[in-house]
């Protein structure tokens, strides 16, 4: 599994600790909400960077008070047709002002990449197969969005307002 971050495919420095798996060596680790709740003290004692992994029916509200502990929040797409994580990503960014990495896991495909970027994802766990060019092309597919988003593309409305203001 590789990580697509800021348009580049890089080695992922984070390790997922599955609920039914052994504890990884010291290092950046992503755990489930359940493990965080059950084992929080130990995780903090490890003294390593922490990330949290939400299932698609868990919401950022459940971890909002604990966000300062996490550098990464991983949101899942059990099927690419399940769009709940788009809303959860937006909530993380807008409502809870989360500044760390929001990464997409699961059924993550190139044709949904731009939607993810516009909802505040900045990293994707990707399977092999797509080239960086493919992801880049997908990210550039639609240049001007028609609704406010979390990437830096100005909206059509703001560009139109600018034009009117310029006279």
């Amino acid at each position: 599994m590789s990580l697509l971050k800021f348009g580049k495919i890089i080695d992922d420095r984070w390790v997922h600790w599955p609920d039914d798996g052994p504890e990884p060596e010291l290092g950046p680790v992503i755990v489930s909400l359940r493990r965080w709740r059950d084992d929080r003290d130990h995780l903090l004692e490890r003294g390593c960077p922490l990330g949290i992994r939400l299932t698609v029916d868990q919401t950022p509200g459940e971890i909002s008070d604990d966000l300062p502990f996490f550098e990464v929040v991983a949101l899942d797409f059990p099927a690419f047709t399940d769009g709940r994580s788009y809303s959860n990503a937006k909530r993380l960014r807008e409502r809870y002002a989360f500044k760390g990495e929001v990464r997409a896991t699961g059924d993550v495909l190139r044709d949904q990449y731009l939607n993810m970027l516009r909802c505040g994802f900045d990293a994707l766990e990707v399977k092999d197969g797509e080239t960086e060019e493919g992801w880049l092309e997908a990210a550039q597919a639609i240049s001007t969005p028609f609704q406010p988003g979390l990437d830096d593309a100005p909206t059509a409305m703001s560009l139109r307002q600018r034009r009117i203001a310029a006279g």
Partner: protein
Amino acid sequence: MYQYDEFDHSLVAERTEQFRGQVARRLAGDLTEDEFKPLRLMNGLYLQLHAYMLRVAIPYGTFSSAQLRKLAHIANKYDRGYGHFTTRQNIQFNWPKLEDVPDMLAELAEVEMHAIQTSGNCIRNVTADQFAGVIADEVDDSRTWAEIVRQWSTLHPEFTYLPRKFKFAFSASEHDRAAVRFHDIGVIVKRNVEGELGFEIMVGGGLGRTPMMAKTLRRFLPERHLLSYIEAILRVYNLIGRRDNKYKARIKILVHELGIDELSGLVEAEWERIRDSDLKLPEEEIRRIRQHFAPPVYEVLEDDTPEFAAHRFENAAFNRWVGTNVVTHKQTGYAIATISLKPVGGVPGDVTAMEMEAIADLADSFSLGELRATHEQNLVLPHVRQVDLYALWSALEDMGFATPNAGLISDIIACPGMDYCALATARSIPVAQRISQRFADLDRQLDIGELKVKISGCINACGHHHVGHIGLLGVDRKGEEFYQITLGGSAAEDATVGTIIGPAIASEAVVDAFETLIDVYLSERNEGERFLDTYRRVGLAPFKETLYPGKFHVAA
């Protein structure tokens, strides 16, 4: 009507190229059908019984003669020379080839048209009152708001993978010509007691397997909050709408299971956080969109000129057509003319490319180049000078499109049914044709009066049978086509879901059953009562007992 600026043009052009790339990857095997199917649906492309089908959007039913000519061209170049107007103000082509679709979309983009989000689990074509902008009883031109929502909903990154499809409808009148009470979100544009413009927001209407009427979520929403409020609704639906069962995934089920009060609480809580965000509509933006719908420069004309009156007096057929197909325009001396796409024995809503060209010419000659598509599968010319009605009617007569049946028994709404649709359980078009032929006599139709007949070929109810004054639902009984009849439905402001009258009736017997129902109505009716009024007064019993004699003991 709305004119694209460079951003709108970019969007449709880029979307077309995005889809072109996706088609190429599909054909090369780099995308599986499972990965491709949601993408092609969101570009309006179905795979139906015989072929692909492309559904092109006509936003809130407003389009131009130039656009209609392009649709004719597309029908000829890429399809089999005809198109079909649908119950959601869209047009469908039944025989496109996958490899041609990107080119078709590119050609549509040239005239500011597209097939974006006309299918898929996303926000669909926004529909509105087909008389918006030209009818006296409206508070505002609802298309301003429909266009604002259309743009906001287009390629919305958060709401591209909803639990299920999502449909908006807009009305700005107490007379609901857009069936807003049967949409996922129905918006009624209105004024509060202070005279400020705003919206009643209704949520959770729909037909399909579980017909439900929308409930009011908010009685009055000030205009600048439209987008933030509906964004809150969509966010709540996206997060907690059911995804476990395709037939329980619409927002109407969420309203039903949570209750409107709890849903309202969730929406209001979300809205509190976002109402002052960038979604708040700036006055300049509202004005900018509204300007696109400014009325054309009308001539100063009189109503009922002697010339017009003379034509009506001298030509009975013309007079009849004016009575059924012409509606009073809010501008003196003008008229709104309905072109019925239901000629006797015809396929409801179908128009050939040649007919499209001819109608486009009529729109140029008589309607300032503008047309409307209605959810009853007819077309409207919204800006006709009353003095031109006779010339218009004569031209329509020559084409065979002057059927004076708007709102009458032969103005049938029918889904494509099993002749075209992979989901259907029975055919619907042949039944519509047979009913139309049986009741072809115009005097008889006028005597029967307003009667909205709607036919669906399966329980997905795309023919809106639940809200027909008489509805027919095609079902399969041991391989034979049977039709279940419902009575008393209405999609207007007196919204009602029809009642099933009894066991389904065999195809051969259905048209006779219609005769029976009409006979009962005619014998029971009081002066001035439409079928629907008589039914509401006398109830199901007389109809049921006559149609199924001796078969039921009907409780009083």
